[in-house]
């Protein structure tokens, strides 16, 4: 750490166009009072142009000195004559400076790229994937990109992992875009990814404390094939596509509703068995590779404590069950958490969301991801339907993206904090 401070001091000096070519930084180990005296004398001496990076000499700590190239041999001879041990810490100061500067410039460029990313616009898959790479590059100590598998059309499926370390810490799962046409869900997730990173970097509570105990996995595009398809043309046939793009038993009707394909009361009421239906459940549970990838990843990780999925539209904040009207065992607590989270959401822009179980608030649905997660023991499972309530529906104007993302973030943040405070 001290070394870097010194390097920065040098960088300031570089601004004054000093050059440090061939200079070395030597680490000296004083072993006796005599050595200390010698070093104290040296410090007063200006002839060799020594630059002491350590002040206050003792035998307890090493002493770092930058030695100008011209004085190197003479100084090293001096140290050897006096039996003062030393090692070369930095072999060529200028080289190090050049490397550091190049890294800083590159980091600044990367940061500018994320800062200049237009969050108030809808982006295609390629742009979102490139944003993810930029975000990872800007926060290499916090974020990594995890490939959890490939889609039916062989596109990679990525989750961003936010982690400050540890070994499989208890984790939070957030996904968006399982239904292709719900564009504001992907767009919100992009903003939220950046927000988590920024909050951590700026040490804004509660994100750093949450991340000191838990990992967050954020899958911005859970249905990449469908999302790409929805961008092909403005025609309803493309833009309003919902499902995956797998070939089904009906060659004229591709695609499965991924949120009816999970292994949770699969093939029960609340899903269609007709491939041409928008909520076609697929031939069998997890028949869709996208669903299998998500399920396998979460199962093999084994330590998820919360599962949240973002959809649009209707402005609803819901919890299990979808397949049945009976109350889930944790219903009172989940309802409480959802209600409080909703209050946070409302505080941003007074957007009215309704809270309740999926079954009662929307309708019966079988094979839903939230039920699957809950039945796997992931207690804090929630589903969001974001803006709006039908005025624009799926075609929400881009100028509402950031506002939607912000209010959603307030709810997510509340839930994550709650999950963190209530380990189980």
């Amino acid at each position: 750490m001290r070394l870097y401070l010194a390097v920065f001091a040098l960088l300031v000096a570089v601004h004054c166009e000093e050059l440090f070519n061939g200079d070395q930084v030597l680490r000296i180990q004083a072993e006796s009072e005599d050595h200390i005296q010698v070093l104290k004398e040296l410090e007063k001496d200006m002839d060799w142009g020594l630059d002491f990076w350590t002040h206050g000499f003792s035998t307890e700590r090493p002493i770092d000195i930058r030695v100008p190239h011209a004085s190197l041999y003479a100084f090293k001879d001096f140290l050897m004559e006096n039996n003062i041990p030393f090692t070369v810490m930095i072999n060529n100061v200028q080289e190090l400076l050049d490397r550091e500067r190049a890294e800083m410039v590159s980091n600044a460029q990367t940061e500018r790229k994320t800062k200049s990313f237009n969050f108030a616009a809808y982006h295609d898959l390629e742009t979102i994937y490139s944003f993810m790479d930029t975000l990872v590059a800007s926060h290499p100590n916090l974020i990594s990109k995890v490939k959890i598998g490939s889609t039916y059309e062989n596109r990679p499926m990525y989750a961003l992992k936010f982690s400050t370390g540890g070994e499989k810490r208890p984790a939070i799962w957030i996904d968006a875009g399982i239904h292709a046409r719900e564009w504001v869900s992907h767009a919100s997730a992009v903003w939220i990814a950046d927000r988590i990173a920024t909050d951590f970097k700026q040490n804004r509570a509660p994100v750093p404390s949450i991340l000191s105990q838990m990992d967050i996995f954020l899958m911005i595009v859970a249905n990449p094939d469908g999302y790409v398809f929805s961008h092909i043309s403005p025609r309803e046939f493309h833009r309003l596509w919902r499902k995956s793009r797998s070939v089904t038993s009906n060659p004229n009707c591709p695609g499965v509703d991924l949120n009816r394909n999970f292994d949770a009361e699969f093939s029960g009421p609340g899903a269609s068995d007709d491939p041409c239906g928008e909520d076609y459940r697929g031939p069998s549970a997890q028949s869709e590779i996208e669903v299998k990838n998500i399920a396998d990843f979460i199962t093999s990780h084994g330590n998820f404590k919360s599962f949240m999925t973002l959809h649009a539209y209707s402005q609803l904040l819901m919890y299990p069950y979808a397949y049945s009207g009976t109350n889930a065992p944790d219903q009172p607590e989940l309802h409480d958490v959802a209600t409080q989270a909703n209050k946070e959401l409302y505080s941003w822009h007074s957007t009215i969301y309704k809270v309740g179980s999926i079954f009662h608030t929307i309708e019966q649905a079988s094979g839903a991801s939230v039920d699957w997660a809950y039945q796997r023991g992931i207690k804090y499972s929630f589903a969001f339907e974001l803006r709006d309530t039908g005025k624009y529906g799926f075609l929400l104007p881009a100028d509402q993206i950031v506002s939607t993302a912000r209010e959603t973030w307030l709810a997510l943040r509340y839930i994550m904090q709650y999950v963190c405070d209530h380990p189980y």
Partner: protein
Amino acid sequence: MATGDLVPTHFPARRAAQVALHHLNTRHGSPFRVFGLQQVHKATAEDVGTGGRKYSLDFSVTDYGSSGSVLRCSADVLFPRTEKHSPPEVQLHCEGLQQISSSPEEEAFYQKHISPDSAVSAHDIPDSYGNISQDMKPFWHLARVAASFIMLRESSENTEYNMAQVANVSQQETSEKQLMLKYHVLLHDFVSQEIIHWKLLSSWSPDGGVRVLETEWQPKCPHATKPPSAN
């Protein structure tokens, strides 16, 4: 199905309120006035003698056509239980509705487009990104009002309709001082998640309100992997 007091945030109450909303729009919608459901405050349901189900609702609506005002409404919505589908019957009262009358905006819009030079035609409203030009907004509102006739007629306790998009609109020759518009609208049923296509011919004037003269259901093309090339 629940009888008696309903939870206002649950879907049975909301679906019934949406039906009342469609009714409200058919009666009072215009190029500058379209109502959306804000929230349901209270709801009850009961079976009625003729085998249908009647919902009594207390709810609020927002006019997102121009004023943004919120109105408090009460309605009775009767879903008949007949072998073949019959449209629900709605009785509705909203506070402050009577005061609403034709606005200067409506007059200006009417004068502009009733002229023989006007031949409006457009498609994809809103576009993929939610954009609608200011000029097109009144046509978008009119489409929703006209679509409300269809949505009202087609509604049951197992549907929840919204208009997803205007695929295209083309102005027809003015007839009897009515603005004549042919629409291809896309409805979204939240329950089945289906997108349903309808073509319709509607008329409007500030005095006459919105009327729907013809409607034609368009089959989704399940037998084609590509949409019909239409431009």
